[in-house]
């Protein structure tokens, strides 16, 4: 695992050392709060195609939320749907973690790609499974970090609310087969159980990407904004004891010069 929790025996430490370690453990960085934009025409079934934030009713879309250039730890995924809500039992949202390279469900080594060629010689190039098995199933080495229908997303008001996906417990029955077909999430997939994010965060190795997928069945075009928060320091350090002993004064005794 790229990121670890390391407990250091603080036998040499001081309050200075403890404070430095604390600062390292609490450090955070964040990507800009910006619209999700479909990168290519083949990143979803969305009618408008590439270079648009619009997700029409009845379409899916996908894209990259985050690329880890070094091992790091994702602690926050802020999302916000605008224009229309994404809160019905038929809406779906998912987040995958895909390593570089990754192995698909058939055991074939793949490289991350933005786009794929439907029906061509390289047709199995999208992230996710290419055969009719659940997302994350088979021999695939990517992981489903989050998968839910729209019912647990904010509903009062339904649009315009910035929320953290880590705070949203996944709900709904298995995601129907084919919900994310022909997007970067998958060319094809079977029904897949819902998954909540690990509340402790997402461990990322250098090269991993976080990929999102959305399926809109809400009745109107949806746009979405997002930002990703992460700990720029690789590992979480824990000192035990949590801070050092205070300096102990030496005992004083008059010098006998007699």
């Amino acid at each position, binding site marked *: 695992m790229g990121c670890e929790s390391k407990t250091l025996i603080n036998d040499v430490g001081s309050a200075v050392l403890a404070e430095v370690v604390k*600062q390292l453990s609490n450090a955070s960085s964040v990507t800009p709060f910006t619209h999700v934009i479909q990168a290519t025409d083949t990143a979803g079934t969305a009618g408008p195609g590439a270079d648009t934030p619009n997700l029409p009713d009845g379409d899916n879309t996908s894209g990259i939320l985050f690329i880890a250039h070094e091992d790091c730890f994702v602690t926050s995924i802020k999302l916000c749907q605008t224009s229309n809500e994404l809160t019905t039992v038929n809406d779906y949202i998912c987040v995958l973690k895909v390593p570089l390279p990754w192995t698909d469900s058939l055991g074939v080594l793949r490289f991350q790609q933005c786009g794929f060629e439907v029906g061509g010689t390289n047709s199995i190039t999208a992230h996710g499974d290419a055969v009719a098995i659940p997302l994350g199933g088979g021999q695939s080495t990517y992981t489903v970090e989050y998968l839910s229908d729209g019912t647990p997303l904010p509903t009062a008001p339904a649009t315009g609310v910035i929320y953290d996906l880590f705070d949203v417990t996944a709900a709904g029955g298995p995601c129907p087969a084919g919900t994310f077909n022909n997007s970067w999430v998958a060319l094809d997939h079977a029904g897949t159980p819902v998954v909540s994010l690990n509340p402790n965060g997402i461990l990322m190795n250098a090269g991993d990407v976080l990929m999102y997928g959305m399926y809109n069945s809400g009745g109107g075009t949806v746009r979405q904004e997002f930002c990703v928060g992460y700990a720029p320091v690789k590992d979480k350090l824990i000192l035990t004891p949590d801070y050092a002993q205070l300096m102990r004064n030496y005992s004083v005794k008059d010098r006998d010069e007699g």
Partner: protein
Amino acid sequence: MHNLCVTTPLKIETRVKVVVKTKTLGFGSGARTDEAQVGAGSEISAEVVSQLNRALSVTPLMHIVQSSDGGGTNDGYDAEVGNNTRMSAVLFSAPEDCFVTAIRLCICGDIEFSATPGLPSAMCLLKVPLPWIDAAGNSQVLQVDGSDNPGGVSAHGDVAAVALGASPVATYSLEFISDNSPFIADNNAVNHQIFDLFDIPAAGTIAAGYLTDTLIAEDHALTNAQSLNPAGISLVRGDVLTWGVYNRCGAEIRVQYSIAYRPVKDELVLDPNISQSVISTSVDNRSR
């Protein structure tokens, strides 16, 4: 943090912060007995602290786009701010406590933003916690859709006709508001030039309702100019920076932005600022 090598003079900056604190560490406390092992209270510790204090992250320079249809006069996902139109967006969201030290802007207009063919233009920046309390005392959640919610009480900023940031109840804070008169060459803020909003001395008085129907406010009263705190902006986990503009310069503008912040929460100050003391020696001339 890699390959520690003390090759540069240590410089520990001092800033006044509210939430993100400056902590003075008793240097050497508990370290005296361990010097031989780790150099606690040594130049190594001083260098580590210095690196932490100067750690920096920055967002890419990119266009500000209106968050939603309800975020201003324009449509959502639109970078163009036409003449006599308002626009707003969230610039930054803090996943953990951090400290914003620079807000780079670049106004790309068909005319200088400082132009005043009629009434002046205005620019504003709010810090909004999660949740926040509006001027009517209602708890609100962060939103980027100003007008599409029940009751219309949805935008950041005041919902009553009081000056921005002046309500004793509202928990958001007015970080910056100014008319367009300081966006001039003297402040490096001419058309197509990247400048830092921290370098802009706010000026003028912003008329009531100038930023209504945006993420800044549903309504507000006359508001005096407010410059950014030159020491930076302390952000608590969940805080957002919400930006708004009212363009009356006579032509369309677009604005690019980049935000720099310190990923490390607090600033550490070592006292004393260097480590081991030189042990003095003297000849013992006392007779035995």
